[in-house]
């Protein structure tokens, strides 16, 4: 399973808090699960959840030797 990460959209207010029952994380502290709930309720407004891009050795530029 690929790892997911939360990306805060540029238009999201800074430090905004969300009500998750007893938990009230700020937008920077959202877990992936919480971010997915918000992204589903408010698409394109606060956060998006993307798969983490993995960097393979083949994609690295060839090292230049002198």
């Amino acid at each position: 399973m690929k790892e997911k990460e939360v990306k805060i959209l540029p238009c999201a207010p800074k430090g905004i808090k969300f009500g998750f029952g007893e938990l009230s994380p700020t937008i920077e502290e959202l877990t992936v699960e919480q971010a997915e709930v918000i992204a589903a309720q408010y698409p394109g407004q606060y956060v998006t959840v993307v798969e983490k891009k993995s960097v393979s050795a083949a994609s690295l530029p060839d090292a230049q030797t002198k």
Partner: protein
Amino acid sequence: MKSFLKLFTGFALLLLGAVVAQATDNVLLGVASMPVAGYVWQTATGLSVVSGESAFYMVLAAIPKTAQGAPNPGGIRKIFLIATDQITGEWPKRSLIEEGELDTAPTLASGTPSPTFVEAAISDNSGKADSSLKGAVGYQSWEHGLELKIAGFTKVQCAAIEKLLNTEVIAVCLLNDGTRVVYGSSYTGLNFEIMHTTGAKGSDRKEWTCKAKQDGYMHGGVILADSVTLPGVAA
């Protein structure tokens, strides 16, 4: 109406008996099908075709009190406000309230910055919200009321209060028992009347008093399901 329904049900049973008798070529079966149909109907719907009851009546639900051993603190922990024009469409909507709670988040208007609820800090446990079902039979609706006091007199408060001038809001109250309740609606918002006093002497309270009252709602204060997340509404 009730008499018409009983008459209609009676003729329907007779018709059923006739159809069964005709189809099976057995009059006895046709006759027997009528009480059987009545029993099946009563089992399925709980409504009797032979008693004095009718299908069209209001079924009440039992109203329980707070369970034994469970706390019931009054008061409001926090109040969050949002202007009604930051919400698209109707919210809360009566048709979405199921079994006493709303599990649908509001659709927020698009724009920058993104719409969010702001907190109106309550001083000295002064927050109070009311719902009243009022009116004569056939003309009843709900009235919502909200009241809170905020200590102080600062430029930040003055600037924030100015934004409430002729502004309709929806309030989400976080009660002391953790329940979140919505007052007002996007179609009929609450509008505050606000007073400030400096007090006469040092021990007097220098505070804002904010009161809002509005009627004509189709629902009382609406409990929000725990699954609903609202931006800016923090525990």
